[in-house]
C-alpha cells in the first residue's frame, strides 16, 4: 500500500526558514519529512561533479579506501559546504534544537539495474569488531526536550524517482523497534535476500512473521537537488534502479553534541574493505559544543573552513 505525501508543496520555502508546526507534527508522527528544494536540477550534478573532482585532487583524505565512501565532507570543499547548507540547517534546528553536529556522511550510488536496498532500522549504528563483540557508533548521554537527537538528511544529486531507486519509508515505524540492530548478520553478496549491502537485515527482525511489505509504504521521490529528512530509526530502504542512469545520493547524519561518537571504535569495515578513524572528526553546523565529548573540526582536512549557520539567522 502506498501513500502520496502532500507535504512537498508547503515545504518548498525560502532558503533560511525552518519548519512549520504542521511539518514538525508530521515528522513526529511519520519519522520523515520532505522533499525540500536545495539545489536546482541543473546545479545539483555540478555540485556533485565538483565533489568528485575534489575527491581525486584532495591532498589530505580522511581515509585511503576507494570502496568505503564515508566522510568525504571532511576533505572535499563542495561537500563541506553541503553539510552545513543553511537550507538544511534551519530545518534541522526545528527538530533538534540549536546545537547540531554532523558526525558522518555516506555516498549512496546505485548503478543501472542495481537491486533495491532492503528495509532496515538503526539508531546507534552498531559496529561489529568481531562476530561477538560490537559497539554503538553513537552513545546518547542525556535526555533532550527536542523531538530528536539524531537525524539523517538524504540529498539526491541525480533524480531518485520510482524508476531511479528512490528511498522508501514505513511511516510511523520509528515509534517501535522492528529489528535488533545489536545482533550480527551474515554476509553474502551473491544471495538475493542479502539486499542490505551484502547483508540480510531481515535476520534481525524481532518478529519473524512481521512483513514490512504489508505495512503502509511511502515512496519518497526526489528530483536532483532535493532532500528528505528522516530518523534512521524509521524503517527505510530503497527501490531498485530500473533506469539506464546511475542514481547518486548522499546521506549526511547529524546528532546533538551531547552524543558520544565512535567512543570505542577506531576502525570501520564493510564492502570488503576497512578504514581507520584516526582522522575522523565531527563538525558543528549550528550552535555550540558544550560537552567536549568528540573531536570537532572547524576546518576540513584541506584547510577549508566549514560554514556555520549562526543563531537567529545571522
Amino acid at each position, binding site marked *: 500500500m502506498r501513500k502520496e505525501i502532500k507535504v512537498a508543496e508547503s515545504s518548498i520555502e525560502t532558503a533560511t526558514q525552518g519548519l512549520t508546526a504542521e511539518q514538525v507534527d508530521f515528522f513526529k508522527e511519520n519519522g520523515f519529512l520532505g522533499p525540500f528544494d536545495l539545489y536546482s536540477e541543473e546545479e545539483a*550534478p555540478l*555540485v556533485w*561533479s*565538483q565533489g*568528485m*573532482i575534489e575527491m*581525486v*585532487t584532495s591532498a589530505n583524505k580522511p581515509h585511503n579506501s*576507494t570502496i568505503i565512501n564515508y566522510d568525504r565532507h571532511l576533505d572535499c570543499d563542495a561537500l563541506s559546504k553541503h553539510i552545513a547548507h543553511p537550507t538544511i540547517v534551519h530545518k534541522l534546528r526545528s527538530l533538534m534544537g540549536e546545537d547540531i553536529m554532523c558526525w558522518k556522511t555516506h555516498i549512496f550510488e546505485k548503478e543501472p539495474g542495481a537491486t533495491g536496498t532492503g528495509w532496515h532500522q538503526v539508531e546507534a549504528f552498531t559496529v561489529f569488531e568481531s562476530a561477538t563483540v560490537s559497539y554503538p557508533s553513537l552513545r546518547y548521554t542525556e535526555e533532550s526536550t527536542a523531538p530528536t537527537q539524531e537525524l539523517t538528511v538524504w540529498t539526491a544529486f541525480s533524480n531518485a524517482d520510482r524508476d531511479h531507486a528512490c528511498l522508501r519509508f514505513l511511516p510511523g515505524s520509528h515509534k517501535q523497534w522492528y529489528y535488533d540492530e545489536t545482533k550480527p548478520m551474515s554476509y553474502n553478496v551473491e544471495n538475493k535476500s542479502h539486499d542490505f549491502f551484502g547483508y540480510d537485515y531481515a535476520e534481525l527482525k524481532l518478529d519473524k512473521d512481521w512483513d514490512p511489505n504489508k505495512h503502509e509504504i511511502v515512496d519518497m521521490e526526489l528530483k536532483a537537488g532535493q532532500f528528505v529528512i528522516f530518523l534512521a530509526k524509521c524503517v527505510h530502504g530503497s527501490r531498485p534502479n530500473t533506469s539506464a542512469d546511475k542514481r547518486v545520493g548522499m546521506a549526511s547524519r547529524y546528532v546533538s553534541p551531547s552524543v558520544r561518537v565512535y567512543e570505542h571504535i577506531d576502525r570501520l569495515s564493510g564492502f570488503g574493505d576497512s578504514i581507520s578513524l584516526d582522522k575522523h572528526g565531527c563538525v558543528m553546523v549550528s550552535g555550540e559544543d558544550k560537552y567536549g565529548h568528540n573531536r570537532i573540526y572547524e576546518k576540513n582536512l584541506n584547510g577549508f573552513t566549514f560554514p556555520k549557520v549562526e543563531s537567529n539567522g545571522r
Partner: protein
Amino acid sequence: MGADDYRHKFAEFLATQTMGGDLTYEQIVRAQSREELGISSLNMIIVLLNYIKEYANGTVTVRPEWVPQLNDVDGIVSVLREIDASAVVPARS
C-alpha cells in the same frame, strides 16, 4: 585536428596510463563508453588531470560540467579538445 584524430590521441595517451590496464590501442579506439574501458569515474578524472599536466602544462582546471561527459568516449574526446583549446601553453601535437 578532427574528432577521429582526437580519438587516436586519447587512445595513445590512455595507453601510457596505469588506468588503461591491458587495453590495446585498437580496443581503446573502438570503445564507446568509459565502462567498456573498465575505468571508474574517479579514475577517469585522474586521467584527465594527467592529460592536463602533459598537454596543457597544468594551466587548465577541471570543470565540473566536464565530469558527466567523461562517461562516453565521444564526451571524453570533446573535453580533450576543450582542454587543448583553453590551454595557455601551445598544445603538444
